[in-house]
């Protein structure tokens, strides 16, 4: 991982006419080269960041240095503000340098494009002229609304991109968000046809990577024979704002193990419970919200049989960088797995290089939709 970016060489607040952006980028690069010596222009992707408020834009802008340190990209930060129409699109330019090892410097470019009201629909036109040709283009939907509710701006931007990245953490209406996004995902997959490659990626699914791996290893028939077939109850506990993460983990388990949802019930801000029919019988799953703590899954308890007797597997977050499986009712030490620390920026940076379609995600989201229907009625 490369070091964080240095301070900008030019004041971002000075607007640059749209048709002067490329010239300004080159000028700033030359300044950087004068200041820091040999600096390479490195761009592996175009990254279009979409924010709908200034707060979202500021937050996203704060993550850009961390993103490009992991995955050098030309960043186009779109600030699509609500309210009265502006006369057009205002643009700002910033070139950043960062060390890449072997005493090398690389630079990446950020262009901020701001518009309000109806002018926001002019942003995709500005974007087209600024994309670097022959590089993959990604959209990061940097808002806390599901992408299914992205409206014409996101639809237009998504038309010719290879990846749309969103984050389901903190969605205000999880069940509706999950249901709508599952439908939206099928459109993304289908409309990306005709030789065009396009995927949608939820950062929450990426965060779940180690939980998914841990649960797979905990229930592996070689290590825990008979455990999968004997599951009676699953309880997932999560911190505030992480209900969709827990939902996706349950959907993953249900999809992988062939569980069919029977009924669902919500106790707002407390618990969501489902009854499933598994190949070996009925079981219950509950996801519980903890009052405090980080927005992530904290514990997964699986009641099952181990070594032929009633037991449980406790999967826990042990500090910020480790997960552990602790068998209960039978002996044994905790089986641990490191979770490398990852900021939001690093998560996005890694996701930019990871453009493979993940059928397990798509299928799990289809199950997530069934779960949503069961609780929405």
């Amino acid at each position, binding site marked *: 991982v490369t070091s964080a970016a240095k301070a900008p060489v030019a004041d971002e607040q000075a607007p640059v006419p749209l048709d002067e952006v490329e010239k300004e980028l080159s000028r700033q690069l030359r300044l950087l080269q004068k200041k820091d010596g040999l600096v390479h222009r490195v761009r592996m992707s175009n990254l279009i960041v979409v924010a709908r408020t200034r707060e979202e834009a500021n937050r996203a802008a704060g993550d850009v240095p961390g993103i490009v340190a992991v995955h*050098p990209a030309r960043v186009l930060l779109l600030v699509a503000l609500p309210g009265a129409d502006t006369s057009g699109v205002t643009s700002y330019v910033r070139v950043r340098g960062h060390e890449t090892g072997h005493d090398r410097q690389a630079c990446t470019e950020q262009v901020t494009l701001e518009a309000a009201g109806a002018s926001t629909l002019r942003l995709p036109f500005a974007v087209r002229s600024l994309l670097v040709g022959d590089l993959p283009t990604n959209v990061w939907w940097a808002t806390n609304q599901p992408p299914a509710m992205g409206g014409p701006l996101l639809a237009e931007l998504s038309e010719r991109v290879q990846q749309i990245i969103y984050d389901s953490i903190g969605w205000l209406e999880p069940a509706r968000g999950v249901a709508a996004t599952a439908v939206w995902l099928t459109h993304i997959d289908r409309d990306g046809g005709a030789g065009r490659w396009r995927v949608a990626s939820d950062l929450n699914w990426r965060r779940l990577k180690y939980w998914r791996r841990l649960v797979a290893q905990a229930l592996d028939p070689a290590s825990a024979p008979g455990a999968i077939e004997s599951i009676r109850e699953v309880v997932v506990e999560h911190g505030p704002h992480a209900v969709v993460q827990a939902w996706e983990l349950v959907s993953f388990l249900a999809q992988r193990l062939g569980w069919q949802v029977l009924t669902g019930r919500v106790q707002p801000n407390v618990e969501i419970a489902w009854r499933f029919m598994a190949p070996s019988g009925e079981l219950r799953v509950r996801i519980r919200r903890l009052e405090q703590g980080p927005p992530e899954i904290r514990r997964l308890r699986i009641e099952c049989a181990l070594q032929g007797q009633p037991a449980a597997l406790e999967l826990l977050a042990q500090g910020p960088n480790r997960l552990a499986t602790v068998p209960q009712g039978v002996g044994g030490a905790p089986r641990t797995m490191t979770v490398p620390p990852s900021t939001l920026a690093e998560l996005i940076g890694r996701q930019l290089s990871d453009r493979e379609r993940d059928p397990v995600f798509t299928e799990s989201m289809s199950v997530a939709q069934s779960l949503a229907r069961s609780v929405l009625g």
Partner: protein
Amino acid sequence: MAVAEHPTRLENPITAAMPPTLLPQPCVLVILGGDGDLAWRKLLPAVYNLNVDGVLPSHFAVVCFGLPSTKEGESGDADEYIRSRARDGISRFSRQILEENHWNDFARGLFFVRGSFNDARAYGQLKAKLIEVDHQFGIPGSRVYYLAVPPPLVETCVVHVRDAGMVADPEEHVAFTRVVVEKPIGKDLDSARDVIRVVAQAFAENQTYRIDHYLGKETVQNVLVMRFANSIFEPLWNQKYIDHVQITVSEEEGLVHADPATGEVVASRVGYYEGVGALRDMVQNHMLQVLCMVALEPPYSLTPDVVRDAKSSVLNCLRLMSPDDVKRDVVRGQYIEGDVNGQLVAGYRYEVREFFKSRKQPIPPKSVNSTTETFVALKLYVDNWRWSGVPFYLRTGKRLPKRASEVAIQFKDVPPVLFNAHPDVPLEPTVLSLRIQPEEGLSMRIASKLPGPKLRIYPVKMEFNYSSSFGDQTPEAYERLILDVMAGDATLFMRRDAVEAAWRFCMPILEAWERMPALNLPEYQAGTWGPIESDRLMESDGRTWRNL
């Protein structure tokens, strides 16, 4: 010949559709020779890094086995001994710094069983420990045995492991057993066959992983990606367009490692290297494996044995040399005193003498005036349709001016018309260079017009640098390879037929050298690019070695 891939394993429904290479399976990594130099420098730091990166299975432990190499290890708590040694190795050699949080987790699953390699009872104790660790960490009896022992001990270890009932049937579908065999696989074809036979007494071919750490390097793997994921290279990748290929592996280091501050000798590889030499140490394995990646035909899939079939085909097409070919096309050399990076360094023979002196051993007669080559350069041919008539030039040596490994594909000159019409100022040929280390990446030298009214052509370099694009934290080769063994992916490991084919190619050279008077061993000053004969080898073909 394609051998069976892996027996059907008990399927985990949760991971059923996921790519297996991403999923190392729960197991115990058993390092025989676990407190030795290889484990200390490479293996334990590699496993620690895998732990930090979160790629190890949760159900995993490391058990080291052997007689302690230090006094502290002979008594006291065996587990604490290996933890202390591992901690030291990780602090010195790990890619990532040692952090207490990760170290504590790693150390919790690290154990040591003291025992002599030829003591059957010790293997009984090892077995008991493994069963205990299985139970503790929920491991289903799967083992990866890493033979980090000197070659003469391989047979002893393998036979004892088998006799102690510690090898699962290759068709067993719950617990697997795999063995990792380090180089050298023999000193010649016969002894290589012996090593293969010895290991086969206990392990089936599909349980055997012969490691060549060069194949774990990202850039070596990238050769295949570059060739087969880009449409422009493969149509040109043949005798019609390629003039020749150069593969260089140069090392600044000699056989003795001194502390840069004090000048004191901290390690010496003379004991291993003397009598082995550069051809056996580098060419027979690393360089021929890299050559295979450059020269292989497109495999029809990326499954391990399909790729390995393609590599074996290359080795089987290497033209075997006659004694006259060896005289003409192979150059060996040995370094004498010289200057590397501004430091005066000793010659090889001096290092040999000092090595035996430090061990208070008499110098063996063959080593008194050692003829072990520390440099070798050779020209070889791959006799198949694609490469007919294209020379491959290989050079490797110790105490060369810099550490650099690369493969360079030099394309044929454009016809001598238009821009190449002046024989006194020929155009520089187009060269694609794949840098393996350091500064991993690739570059392409092409001709370009200099700006201005006059027509002037100048060679320019297009560069791709791994660290600029992907950051500076590329995993070490051993990390990748250990993970592959745990995942049961043998693609990057040498199959027995490939090992034998590589030795078959080297044997005529070794035999010719054996017959040649030792006086003909050219010398080169440390800090130069090898003996003058190496340059003449190229010049006689109207070519030159690349400046690295």
